[in-house]
């Protein structure tokens, strides 16, 4: 336990001498790794990001003495290797993934959880997020323009506001489905915010 803590402290120290900044860099790198792994179709992106962190931590004693450059670049190299390993594994594997690991939530379950989570939002935010998701194509673009005009904010600010609210809502829905699946003893399928994950992140910022 102490060894892991020491290694983790050393990793933070390597990222930045300032502990707070190091913590932020760690979060950014971990979230970035998850986004990359999700985008490249790596199975279980959260776990792969943890694995990348572990690999770098284990090599840290020699790295600190020999590596020159931004640590993010080293993490990127490790991520690339993990992506290749995942591809090779998928090419040779003949294992059948158990149903319980791939089962996706029922449509009605998703709708029910969404309705519950929407009710947890203040009425104006409920109204906003539902309004934002109306219409398609040109009509949607025009609608967003009008919404921004009504709120006297830029379209970019409107998009930012909608994105943040959606992240909150999605997190709530994920947790609701997780609870619901736990009740029926079915393992949940991963659901997340475009790969920004804490997943199985076992190294907590200290």
């Amino acid at each position, binding site marked *: 336990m102490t060894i892991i803590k020491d290694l983790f402290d050393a990793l933070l120290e390597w990222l930045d001498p300032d502990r707070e900044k190091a913590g932020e860099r760690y979060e950014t790198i971990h979230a970035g790794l998850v*986004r990359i792994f999700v985008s490249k179709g790596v199975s279980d992106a959260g776990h792969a990001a943890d694995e990348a962190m572990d690999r770098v931590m284990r090599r840290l004693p020699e790295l600190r003495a020999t590596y020159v450059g931004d640590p*993010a670049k080293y993490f990127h190299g490790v991520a690339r290797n993990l992506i290749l390993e995942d591809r090779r594994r998928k090419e040779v594997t003949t294992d059948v993934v158990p149903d319980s690991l791939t089962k996706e939530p029922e449509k009605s379950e998703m709708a029910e959880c969404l309705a519950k989570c929407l009710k947890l939002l203040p009425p104006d935010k409920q109204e906003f997020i539902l309004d934002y998701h109306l219409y398609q194509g040109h009509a949607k673009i025009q609608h967003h323009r009008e919404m921004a005009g009504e709120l006297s904010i830029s379209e970019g600010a409107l998009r*930012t506001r909608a994105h943040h609210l959606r992240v909150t809502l999605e997190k709530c829905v994920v947790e609701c489905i997780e609870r619901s699946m736990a009740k029926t003893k079915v393992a949940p399928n991963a659901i997340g915010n475009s790969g920004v994950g804490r997943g199985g992140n076992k190294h907590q910022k200290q």
Partner: protein
Amino acid sequence: MPLVIAALVVGVTNIKNSEKNEIKRYLLGLSGEAEDERLELRLLMDAAFGGEFDAIVDEITDQHVSGEFQGEEREQVEGYFLKSPERRAKAQFAAALIDHASAREKKTVRLPAVASPTLRERWRAFWSAQNVALRFAATAAIVVIAVSLAYLNFRDKPYKSFALLELTISNSERAEGTQLKPLPLTPQNDAAKIFLDLPDQSNQYTSYQVELVDRNGARRNVEITERNQRAVTVIIPASALTRGSYALHLFGNKSDGKQERIPGSYLFVVQ
């Protein structure tokens, strides 16, 4: 499988059009290795860029769920973007959210509290009051309008398979001596759908016009099917594209009715 959820909500900055398109290409598996590396390094170094990346993931997901992608675009989204279980689950969430929003919109249409003549009853009363000649002329006009609308609708959507290309404006006016982007046109494609990234200073225009110029200098206007603040999309029938280099010229219409050519060209080649 552990649950992957949002742990970090970071600020979404308003990035440039070119960066947004770079993210889209990456997400759809259309970018090259060097482009991938540059973007991935930024994801590992810049938390705000990660927020923008997520917002674009949301946009693509919503567009897919709303059925806005067709043909090859749709195949690209389904075969690449939605490869991971996280993205598929995200699409389920987006579908539920969009359904909920539409259902609520429908519910808000309320019946009038006091009974009053229906639209149909009012129309009947009005129609009966008109003379026969006027009724005949109105019926003929309605038939002509309906046929025209049907024709326009048919004319606007004849294409099923597109060759896709995204272009940024080049300072060069002519194709010669410039690296041209190839249009991946196959015999199966009915048309080319080309996304023209707008230059940063072009938000002063209320509308645009696009002109296609072939290697012999022949010009024709092309149809703009979509536009937003960052790009305009044009569709060019495959029959209008033979082998050779092409330039697209962009014209901006100002609110005072004046039109001006936006300097530079969007260059591509059909091989």
